[in-house]
């Protein structure tokens, strides 16, 4: 609560001052799905860093719950405040398009990051990781852990989740490679991103498939619930686990051996890249067209490429691997 008060007063101050004092650099606003989410707090840290690097002003905002209505209201405010750029992690692919078009008509540079909006409502999208890469990397990791042999299972979020389903499709694609000939995907189950259901599903997997060697769980709740289930069932070392997880949640399970390694994109870098791209768009250094190249500060060279949804995107890079060697340094970050 205190934080949102502070943000509110900062916004008020910014809007008051920007009307008569020429603010230093551009004002770049980051709008996230919801506030109070450690993932986005980490994005904001990167955003602040990038804004400082380019001499811009950085604003961070989000609705209290991840709703489209809350985001629309905030974007309307941004337009009224005449910010120079908006980086949005959208709560809906299409619903924000009208208000974002209005923002662009007012000369605001709009980009999406983390969760894309329709290409009509953005200049460019900053993609955290390539779906194909995410899928393949997890299969490669579990294969190494189990020695390329045995039954594996996937414990996903809800059966309707587009992200997870795309990743799973690429996992199945990767498993067709002859080097995985001795591995078999025994089951795909859904824990609905509920801790109790995910835990039960993991327990069910152990009992339904006594020879199970590994589980991939491409969702943060699923992977930590599965780690707890592996621990409780006394299967550490017998059933291997990888997936997409948050270091703070996974620290315990990396230390006790239930999960040797897992992946996630680095949210600090993601926020940094998004805010950097927004800054370059404001300067006119880039325009968001396919094929443009640029240097994003400490992150190095990037090329804008065509995205699957028909627009353009910048790809952050391969997902980050977390394991015993670096978990301590990350567990307090997000």
């Amino acid at each position, binding site marked *: *609560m205190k*934080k949102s008060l502070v943000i509110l007063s900062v916004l008020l101050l910014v809007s008051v001052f920007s009307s008569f004092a020429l603010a230093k650099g551009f004002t770049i606003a980051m709008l996230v799905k*919801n*506030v*109070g*989410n*450690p993932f986005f707090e980490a994005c904001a840290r990167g955003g602040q860093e990038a804004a400082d690097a380019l001499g811009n002003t950085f604003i961070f905002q989000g609705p*209290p719950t991840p709703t489209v209505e809350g985001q629309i209201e905030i974007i309307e405010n941004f337009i009224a405040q005449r910010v120079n750029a908006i980086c949005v992690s959208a709560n809906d692919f299409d619903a924000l398009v009208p208000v974002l078009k209005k923002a662009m008509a007012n000369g605001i540079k709009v980009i999406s990051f983390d969760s894309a909006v329709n290409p009509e409502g953005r200049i460019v999208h900053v993609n955290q990781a390539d779906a194909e890469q995410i899928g393949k990397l997890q299969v490669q990791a579990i294969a190494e852990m189990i020695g390329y042999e045995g039954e594996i299972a996937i414990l996903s979020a809800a*059966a309707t989740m587009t992200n997870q389903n795309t990743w799973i499709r690429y996992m199945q694609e990767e498993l067709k490679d002859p080097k995985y000939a001795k591995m078999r995907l025994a*089951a*795909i*189950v*859904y824990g609905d991103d*509920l*801790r*109790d*259901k995910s*835990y*039960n*599903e993991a*327990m*069910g*997997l152990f*009992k*339904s498939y*006594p020879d199970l060697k590994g589980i991939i769980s491409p969702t943060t709740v699923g992977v*930590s*619930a599965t780690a*707890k289930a592996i621990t*409780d069932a006394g299967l550490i070392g017998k059933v291997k686990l990888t997936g997409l997880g948050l270091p*703070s*949640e996974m*620290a*315990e*399970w990396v*230390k006790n051996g239930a999960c040797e390694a897992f992946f996630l994109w680095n949210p600090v870098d993601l926020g940094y890249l998004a805010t950097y791209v927004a800054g370059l768009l404001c300067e006119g250094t880039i325009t968001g067209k396919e094929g443009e190249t640029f240097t994003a500060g400490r992150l190095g060279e990037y090329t804008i490429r065509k995205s699957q949804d028909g627009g353009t995107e910048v790809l952050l890079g391969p997902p980050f691997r977390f394991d015993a060697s670096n978990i301590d340094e990350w*567990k307090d970050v997000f």
Partner: protein
Amino acid sequence: MRKGGGVQIRGLRELGIIVFIIIISILVGIRNPRFLTWGNLHDMLLDTAVLSVVAVGMMFVLVTGGIDLSAESVLALTGMVAGIIIKDNPYLSPVFMLLFGLLFGGFLGAVTGLIVAKGRVLPIIATLSMMYIYRGITFIVSRGEWIDAHEMPESFKALATGRVLGFSNLIAIALGVYLLFYYFANHTRTGREIYAVGSNLEAARIIGINTDWVIWLVYTLSGALSGLGGVMWVARYASAQNDTAAGFVLTVVAACVLGGVSISGGAGTIPGVFLGAITIGIINNALPMIRVSPFWRMALQGLIILVAALVNVAVARNVERAQLRQREELRMVRHGA
């Protein structure tokens, strides 16, 4: 007067659900023999422990003709506050945390109880409001963050992994709650007054029962048990989240109703709630083990609950018919309808 015949009838009433539990266990056991092993049975009871504790509280509220939708938020808020306390004070004993859960949850429930009993707000509205308020406070106190496994001391997590007499601590707690409240419901004056209030509020008032106090009490009890459940939940999953147990209250009410607790008040027994909770536990535990497509399982889950309810109703109706023949008690007609 009711007691003599009551025991016998109650036995019959719960026959339906017992038969159902046996049938479903055999069917699942055929498909996956591991279902009927001691280890799995223990896992299943463990899964049912939190549900049991919260359902006992819910039963008393349902018996008075009310409903406590705030139970899941009380569980989440108490779990979160307990998580924050144990994170900052890892030396605290787990037993203290359980007591804290009871007291803190009881306080939250008492507030709801006041609104229902003294404010005369309909239970469904009062508890729906409190469900949102307590969930909101959960976000506020946690600042949207969660407590992770590595932030909890081993002693606290051992609450869920430790055992007494071969049973998990959590199962022991649930059993203790069942025994205590079985005694409370059947052998104490206050316990009987709860049933009297639920059967006929006006009559209860006329014979001198302090009905407001009884109604306040059941919400306080429900809060206390939900709070206890919250601490158990957080220890069990080694994680306190803002959305802990979202939607859980429906499962709790389902367990009660399957166990023969009447939504319109007046009827409900502790053994019934136990059987209802076990039924839900079996469904949750068995479905992941029978190797059918997850897409079918969701529909199957609904179907099983429906069949259980139908079997239950059919048996109850037969019992009541027999009873009607014995003595024409008006109250029974109401429940048969």
